[in-house]
């Protein structure tokens, strides 16, 4: 246990620069979004922007378009913007494939030649991925509230705290889900690039499937297999509570990935 804690501390120290930089960028993005939202609100630009949206697009996007074209909507955008989701998932995949990287470099030989059980490697990686992902979301939420305090125009309605927290939880579960998938792949791989690339491609394919299904009815039949289906920020923004089913499915995928990682890593040969 002491050895595992030492390894965790060492791993955390190695990723601290990447994690802090990503966290600060994500938090800064929230500030920028709120600053922009404040400026648009003050100049009354939301109504003009809404008027610019063509009717077919308005029909396609439904009531969410009205919601997003508001101060609250832009503030919430920071939790489902493609770059934000991509950055969080990429970070989770990078952390989750740490064992593959350690096998590739030969560092795993030195670690496992000590009296350290293999399951601690996976436990360390789960703790690392979960902790850093959670820290990213905490920084984002902190960025949102700081931005609201600093840049929200007087009299404008702030998005409810429960909504921001729900978005953060759902996004966090989506991140962890891809962390679980990447960890299972990484536990059986000898190359981080292969593990990370495979997980990244899967995530991209799943994102496209979900995206296409929202525009093309026939794809709806298989869209349930995409984890992105279980993160629907517009539902949350329109006032619906966070569906437990979404959290359960994403959490279930993450846990399955973690369990698979334990089994695969325990059985594999460590060779680089």
């Amino acid at each position: 246990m002491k050895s595992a804690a030492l390894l965790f501390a060492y791993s955390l120290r190695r990723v601290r620069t990447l994690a802090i930089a990503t966290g600060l960028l994500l938090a800064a993005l929230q500030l920028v979004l709120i600053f922009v939202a404040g400026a648009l609100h003050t100049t009354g630009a939301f109504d003009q922007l809404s008027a610019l949206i063509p009717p077919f697009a308005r029909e396609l996007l439904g009531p969410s378009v009205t919601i997003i074209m508001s101060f609250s909507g832009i503030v919430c955008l920071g939790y489902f913007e493609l770059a934000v989701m991509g950055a969080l998932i990429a970070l989770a995949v990078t952390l989750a494939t740490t064992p593959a990287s350690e096998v590739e470099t030969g560092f795993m030989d030195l670690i496992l030649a000590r009296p350290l059980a293999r399951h601690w490697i996976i436990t360390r990686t789960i703790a690392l991925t979960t902790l850093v992902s959670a820290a990213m979301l905490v920084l984002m939420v902190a960025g949102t509230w700081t931005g609201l305090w600093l840049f929200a125009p007087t009299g404008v309605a702030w998005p409810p705290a429960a909504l921001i927290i729900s978005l953060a939880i759902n996004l966090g579960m989506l991140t962890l889900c891809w962390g679980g998938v990447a960890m299972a792949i990484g536990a059986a791989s000898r190359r981080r690039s292969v593990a990370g690339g495979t997980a990244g491609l899967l995530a991209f394919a799943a994102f496209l499937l979900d995206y296409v299904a929202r525009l093309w009815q026939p794809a709806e039949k298989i869209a349930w297999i995409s984890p992105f289906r279980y993160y629907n920020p517009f539902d949350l923004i329109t006032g619906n509570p966070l569906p437990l089913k979404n959290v359960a499915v994403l959490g279930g995928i993450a846990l399955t990935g973690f369990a698979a990682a334990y089994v695969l890593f325990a059985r594999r040969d460590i060779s680089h």
Partner: protein
Amino acid sequence: MAPISIRGLTKRYGNVLAVNNLNLEVIQGEILGFLGLNGAGKTTTIRILLDLLRPNSGNASILGHDCQTDGLRARLNVGYLPGEMGIYSDLTGREVLDLLAGLSGHVINMSRRRELQERLEFPAGDLRRRLREYSTGMKRKLGLIQAFQSDPQLLILDEPTEGLDPLMQESFYRLLVDVKGRGRTVFMSSHVLSEVDRVCDRIALVRKGELVLLSSVEELRRLAARSVRVLFSEDVPGPRSWNLKVEGPLGPLLRTIAGLPIQDIEIEEAKLEDVILKYYRDGAK
């Protein structure tokens, strides 16, 4: 309780048989040289001992603990130097040593570490530098320090002198003699036959995954053929200079040539390398 006991160990990679029914027992307090050409199965065997690889059949144990079913206790008293030190280059030497010491399950005696640094001429200041600034030789020295620093009962060393300059090799050999003197056991793979000749008590030679020779170095030297050159002062049957290879005692040869007009005899000491190379070439019995 043997430091290392290997029984019927077999490891396949698909159709390739890396280790084939290997049986080997390492004796307490000896330095055993584990020899073989590239791909002979040396590193695979070492990796099975450390439970990095899982055998297809057979078993191996370290200090009485099965390497697979009781791996944690088996590795508790092992110092390991891999063939290639896979360390992240953004770490400092001290961070590497501290991390690996912490994972060893033992409290490291810092004076032991300092002693190793001195013997391997590794200045304390270099430990504060990041590994990306280290030369190959420095990384090797760091590897040796991490393997020896917990003063383990058993040292498993994979090509330990690879990348060390001749002076450091000397220091390393002296270090081996010291640890052996304190009752520690060393299991080392090597390509350097002169090194094996000099420091090992016994050698185990593997060829295509099979053990083809297990012998004390002393015994092997006795088996080795000596080169004898006899120069005659007058004509004899055959040429005036005979170049002979003599296995075993020289008596029969001396009796044969006793009546001949001998001008000079040169006897070259038997070389362990000759015997080992013979096994490398054809796996002779």
